[in-house]
């Protein structure tokens, strides 16, 4: 079995970013709301939130949800003026 070149390239990037401990999707979702608020307000990251960032680097599902959530909150904030 062999990976296609584009698969191999994408996999190498993911392997390099792999950490010994990574949170699961459910753990990420539990912290995602707080993470987005931190991102939007520029508050310093708490000790737990870098793990969310690391998970988002590896998980397309959670990263998609993060971007949509961030867009929704930004739109509401603009609406409030």
């Amino acid at each position, binding site marked *: *079995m*062999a*990976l*296609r*070149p584009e*698969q*191999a*390239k*994408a*996999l*190498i*990037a*993911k*392997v*390099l970013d*792999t950490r*010994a401990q*990574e949170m*699961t*999707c*459910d753990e990420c*979702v*539990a*912290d*995602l*709301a*707080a993470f*987005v*608020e931190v991102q939007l307000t520029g508050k310093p990251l708490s000790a737990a939130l870098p793990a969310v960032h690391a998970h988002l680097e*590896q*998980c*397309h*599902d959670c990263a*998609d*949800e993060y971007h*949509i*959530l961030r*867009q*929704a*909150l930004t*739109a*509401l904030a603009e*609406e409030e003026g």
Partner: protein
Amino acid sequence: MRAPRENASWIRDLRAGGPVQAEAITDLRGLLLRGLAKSFQARGATDQAFVEDVVQQALVHILDHLDQFQGRSRFTTWAMAIAVRLAMSALRRKRWQDVSLESLTTPIEGAPAWDSDDTTSPAQHAEQHALVETLNRLVDEALTEKQWLALTAELGGMPLEEIARRMGSNVNAVYKLLHDARQRLKHGLATAGYTAEDVRSAFP
């Protein structure tokens, strides 16, 4: 116009019953509808009927799980995260319903052609080729069949939720399976003598 509710007020009002609860539900519904509509509109992804359906499902879920709100964010952010998750889950199912796991995970027989771009030097091309050969060997030797399936499906763009559905599993288990696979490959590359710097230099 009333002042925005604090977290405790949301919880209290949504549990109140009667007109107080009805008003809180109406407010939350409006907020979720506006937020989701704008974020999905920006992506050109979906229509108002879909958003309204998702928000209705989200409200039911939120009311059933108020005790799970831990106050680590604003209540409305937590609620919006739930609505986003339900929306994305429905969109993923629709987008991937006709794609089989096999169509993404069929391996190439033999060595695939490795084309570097025009800016790659011959030395770098050789480094890339050797690294990809090592990676393919490690994939063969170190990964289980399940890991190979999940990994290639993920690399093919299939969401973890859809991989899990097809494997009769759940997203957390699939994530752990993939994490273990990546760890095995990382360890294998290190054992084969590749440092992170070597890999980054081959694929800057």
